[in-house]
């Protein structure tokens, strides 16, 4: 029995996947459970395992192709088995047969509808001739003929509506300076004049820099672009900054470092402490742990802290669930594993979804202070700067202290300035007296 393998759904939000690499070639034997393909979802790369044993008889999509979940990608079958017909032909044939049975028509009386051939524009020979003569791209012409056929009239109308009108002087300038008149924006019917072609001093353009490399916006890049744009576009951000004296956190870390190393075999980081501290501060300021849903604001019970991890070609935010209920050692162990998985692209969807608050730290890049974009549907994000020794005034003394900037970005639809400030103040107090969070 031939097995038709489809694009697996590797996470609740996955709708399509990219075939990165076929691990089995056509004709190779394959065991049930054996990885046969590497698939990239919007976040991670995963190997999918064969559902059946047999021979990889047919690969239906090539590497690099983006395939919707549930779409056939390969056929595993016995060596001599007759393969089922796959894909659109199959469904079309089935539909045709179904409609035939239904209407009782003879084969000859098939629907007149012509099949659309990919990449081919349906146009009459006359339309094609006129398009050719006038250098018109037929794919831009709106068809009016039966079954979507472009007729000669359609092309003529396209030419008429797209004909560029320009004054003789404008045309001369365009030719001399090599300006394409098509690029000049004008109201329909209005003529292009000299003024349109001679740019104002401030608008003069210079030759564009030469392209070194073109990066297609797909997968993670696309998701980041979409989500950041959406967040900035929908959530009015307010930014609150304060400085924290990190003396005691540094002391605490040094004390805990060997113990955690011994017990959890991982290195305690400032981020781990920040996760714990934030979770405790959130518990006291639950509004920060919320989502704005238009009609209502949901305050979340679980405090799931995401930590932004930079990758070579993007960014991912693994989540430490219920951070308020976990010890620092446990958090440290978890983040170590999550970061490693994130960097190797092996993070499972459940490990980067469901966050309620995010921490992003650019201190290691010497950044002192920055403002982050909220990771929706969360309502706040904490941007952490570098710990720097600074002269500060304590009492009436100038002393040197390791200081760190924290900037909270809040969605003002949910969190008002004072609420955000209270959270930040709580966090500052916890970090300056870190033993408090153990209570």
């Amino acid at each position, binding site marked *: 029995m031939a097995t038709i393998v489809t694009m697996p759904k590797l996470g609740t939000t996955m709708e399509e996947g990219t075939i990165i690499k076929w691990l089995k070639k056509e004709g190779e034997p394959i065991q049930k459970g054996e990885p046969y393909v590497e698939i990239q979802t919007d976040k991670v790369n995963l190997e999918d395992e064969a559902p059946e044993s047999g021979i990889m008889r047919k690969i239906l999509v090539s590497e690099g192709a983006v395939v919707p979940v549930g779409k056939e990608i390969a056929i595993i079958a016995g060596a001599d088995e007759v393969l089922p017909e796959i894909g659109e032909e199959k469904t079309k044939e089935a539909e045709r047969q179904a409609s035939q049975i239904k209407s009782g028509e003879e084969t000859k009386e098939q629907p007149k509808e012509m099949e659309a051939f990919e990449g081919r524009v349906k146009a009459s020979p006359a339309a094609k*001739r006129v398009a050719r003569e006038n250098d018109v791209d037929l794919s831009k012409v709106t068809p009016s003929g039966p079954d979507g056929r472009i*007729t000669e009239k359609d092309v003529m109308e396209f030419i008429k509506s797209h004909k560029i009108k320009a004054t003789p002087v404008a045309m001369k300038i365009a030719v001399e300076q090599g300006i394409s008149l098509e690029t000049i924006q004008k109201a329909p019917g209005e003529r292009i004049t000299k003024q349109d072609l001679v740019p104002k001093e401030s608008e003069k353009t210079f030759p564009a820099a030469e392209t070194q490399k073109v990066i297609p916006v797909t997968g993670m890049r696309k998701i980041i672009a979409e989500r950041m744009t959406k967040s900035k576009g929908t959530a009015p951000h307010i930014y609150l900054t304060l400085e924290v004296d990190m003396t005691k956190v540094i002391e605490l870390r040094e004390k805990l470092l060997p113990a955690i190393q011994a017990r959890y075999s991982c290195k305690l980081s400032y981020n781990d402490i920040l996760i714990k501290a934030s979770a405790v501060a959130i518990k006291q300021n639950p509004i920060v742990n919320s989502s704005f849903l238009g009609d209502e604001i949901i305050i979340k019970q679980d405090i799931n802290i995401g930590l932004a991890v930079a990758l070579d070609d993007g960014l991912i935010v693994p989540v430490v669930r219920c951070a308020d209920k976990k010890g620092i050692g446990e958090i440290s162990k978890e983040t170590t594993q999550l970061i490693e998985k994130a960097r190797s692209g092996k993070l499972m969807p459940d490990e980067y979804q469901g966050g309620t608050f995010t921490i992003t730290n650019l201190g290691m890049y010497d950044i002192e202070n920055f403002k982050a974009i909220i990771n929706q549907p969360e309502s706040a994000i904490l941007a952490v700067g570098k710990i720097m020794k600074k002269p500060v005034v304590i009492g009436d003394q100038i002393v040197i202290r390791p200081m760190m900037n924290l900037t909270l970005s809040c969605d003002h639809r949910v969190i008002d300035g004072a609420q955000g400030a209270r959270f930040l103040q709580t966090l500052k107090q916890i970090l300056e007296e870190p033993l408090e969070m153990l209570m």
Partner: protein
Amino acid sequence: MPEKLYIDALREGLREEMLRDENVFILGEDVGLYGGAFGVTKGLFQEFGEDRVKDTPISEAAIAGAAVGAALCGMRPVAEIMFFDFFTIAMDQLVNQGAKNRYMFGGKAKVPMVIRGPMGCGTGAAAQHSQSFPAVFAHFPGLKVVMPSTPYDVKGLIKASIRDDNPVVFAEHKLLYRVKGEVPDEEYIVPLGKADVKRKGKDITVVAGSIMVIRALEAAKQLEKEGIDVEVVDPRTLKPLDMDTIINSVKKTGRVVIVEDDPISFGWGAEVAAGIASSSAFDYLDAPIKRLAGLDIPIPYNPNLEKHAVPQVEDIIKGIKDTLR
């Protein structure tokens, strides 16, 4: 210009040629005293006598064979076949002798003969007396095929056919005999191989032959009221076929409907369609070429069914509108 019936114009043409050339004679079943089953030769027996208007036995093979032989001997026979359906019996003499002799004698012998008869349905004559198949003869090298649609054309073309040195199949439609049209009294000839634009138009070309020219013109007249300007092209002779006139018309209009009286399969309309599609007119086509023709069935006796067996005016109107969509 005086108006004459198709049948009378045809007889005038025959008579003029008989007067002009004494080698021209008529033979066929009941063409003499009776004047032919449809009356085409009426009065000619009285005028020219039994030597030049000869009644024959009921054998189309004999009629055709005698005509081929007489033509080879220098005569110019015009043989009448009572119904076009019976051309099948004359087929061997016509196709295997008449069409081949000039070629096989290296041009030293000629076969100047006309074989004519009434075709088509619409008279309730049933399956064996109602067929139109002039296209069959266009398939054979050595034969010419003519199918005039108007009184003017039938006279001019019968004269040209009689004067031609090759066997000519001359297909008349029964329903055309009673059609009236302008025919000058003066001598004229309509050359073989020359199509005629029966009606000038700019929106769509209808290529129609024989009786279908009349129906296409009626359709055009009705469509004119709806602002559709139809050009009707009548090839007049299937062989030689004047593709140039058709191509030029299609180039002008970009759309074409071909209307035939013959059954659709392998009909002359397919030849015309292929000629258009493979010509310079291809780049001017703005819609698929449409063919309207007889159904692939024997002509039914029942008058209602008979009517639907071949295109009627309303079918042509619909075909034109479909192509103009």
